[in-house]
């Protein structure tokens, strides 16, 4: 186990320069989620039209892992159908449990950098927070 497995350069890049940080003006579903054990928070917004995620933005507070994961996730799901996005949620969850997954299925190759998180059990919840928010948002869209 090495720290460099966890803190890859690409993770730090997303942490320092988060993509899609902000609010969506109109027509978005908002999901607020926190990790009660550590205080990390995310407020995720998604604008879904005809079953396609047109836009995803987030605000939140947290560590490098949780914020970089949110940044990557919002990049990755843009333009996907909600079904495709849900598949990514499952794929990411498998990856966090240390299972072998086909990295090429992620539309954003940066996500591969988060593979190392699975070796740090205490940090898995940091990485999955944004994806749990995504899943919750999709469920809400499906109910509407």
């Amino acid at each position, binding site marked *: *186990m090495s720290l460099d497995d966890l803190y890859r350069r690409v993770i*730090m890049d997303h942490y320092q320069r988060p993509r899609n940080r902000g609010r969506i003006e109109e027509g978005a579903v908002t999901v607020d989620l926190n990790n009660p054990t550590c*205080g*990390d928070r995310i407020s995720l917004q998604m604008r879904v039209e005809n079953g396609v995620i047109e836009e995803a933005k987030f605000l939140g*507070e*947290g560590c490098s*892992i949780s914020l970089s994961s949110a940044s990557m996730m919002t990049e990755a799901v843009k333009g996907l159908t909600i079904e495709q996005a849900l598949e990514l949620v499952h794929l990411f969850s498998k990856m966090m449990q240390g299972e072998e997954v086909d990295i090429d299925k992620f539309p954003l190759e940066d996500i591969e950098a988060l593979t190392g998180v699975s070796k740090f059990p*205490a940090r898995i919840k940091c990485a999955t927070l944004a994806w749990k928010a995504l899943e919750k948002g999709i469920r809400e869209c499906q109910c509407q």
Partner: protein
Amino acid sequence: MKSYKKDFPILHQEVNGHPLVYLDSAATSQKPIPVIEALEDYYKGYNSNVHRGVHTLGSKATDAYEGAREKVRRFIHARSTKEIVFTRGTTTAINLVASSYARTRLAPGDEIVITPSEHHSNLIPWQQVAKSTGATLKYFPLEADGTLDLAKVKETITPNTKIVAIQHVSNVLGTVHPIKEIAQIVHQHGGVILVDGAQSVPHMKVDVQDLDVDFLAFSSHKMLGPTGIGVLYGKEALLDEMEPIEFGGEMIDHVDLYDSTWKELPWKFEGGTPIIAGAIGLGAAIDYLESIGMDQIEAHDRALTKLACEKLSQVEGITIYGPKENRMGVVTFNVDGVHPHDVATVLDAEGIAVRAGHHCCQPLMRWLGATATARASFYIYNDEEDIDRLVKGLQKTKEYFGNVFR
């Protein structure tokens, strides 16, 4: 500064290739050999239920269980073992008072007063009591360093104040609150005071008669004993007029088809088979603490906390929270530009265990203006070398994050 590391087997191991430095005793303490052996002796030699068997093992277990209660009584200087109720921990002890004492007595217009720095366990029970009784929940104002100003305490307490519930030592800031003085003010107004002693009883002499507190709650696992057991001390007159909140075996006197009566104190509050091994382990922990001496332990823990504050404040880019003087057992801090989770992960890679997060004090975190913090906490098995390792670990954290950022 003497360290008692040798008595704690768990500390003699490597974590991630480095000798373990355990700096998370405010979350839970490690256990010395005599405590581990007391549990082993009980389970190997005389495991039995208490207060019922005629047989020899049952008597031995009962003697050990009740013997532990006497040790607790002596340790906190209660008048009688009737005032010592074994609970599952501090949380259960506070909830017992909230449910049995407060819910049945408070009404709209009454006040409960606490501090904004309470652990959730001494905050949420009172929120719930306020909601269900219509009583008002009020807060003492904190000074900029997290301490209390007694003049403001006096202003906050009124004749309507029925309960003041307050931590003795803050698990985040290490603040030691002037309990004796506060108890006096509360009593002048006819209220009762409950003290959360989870972070004080392990580190200093706490004398319930000298402090004149009405209730004191604390946990075994933070004072070298096993998890799963804690203590509610209550003045006999108060406990006597309180109803049990758990009903069943062990706590009854006479049972009819439609009505029953309760055992006398303290057993009416101990429904079900009690935490026998836990109590015996706690008794062994008290013996161990007393063999060192609580004054000695307090001096050691205060000195280490002071040293840690000094050394950490010399590291550039570290913010320390809480008072500069008179703090006990914990140093809570942040490293500029590095989230505390990341700090804790880098330290862990160096074999150093610290806590990161909100420390079960979300309102206090907001008051500090931090979403989370890192915390190092100390006990008798820590020494200067541990602090030096922490400082080195923090320097490494800064270097590491400085480099990946570049």
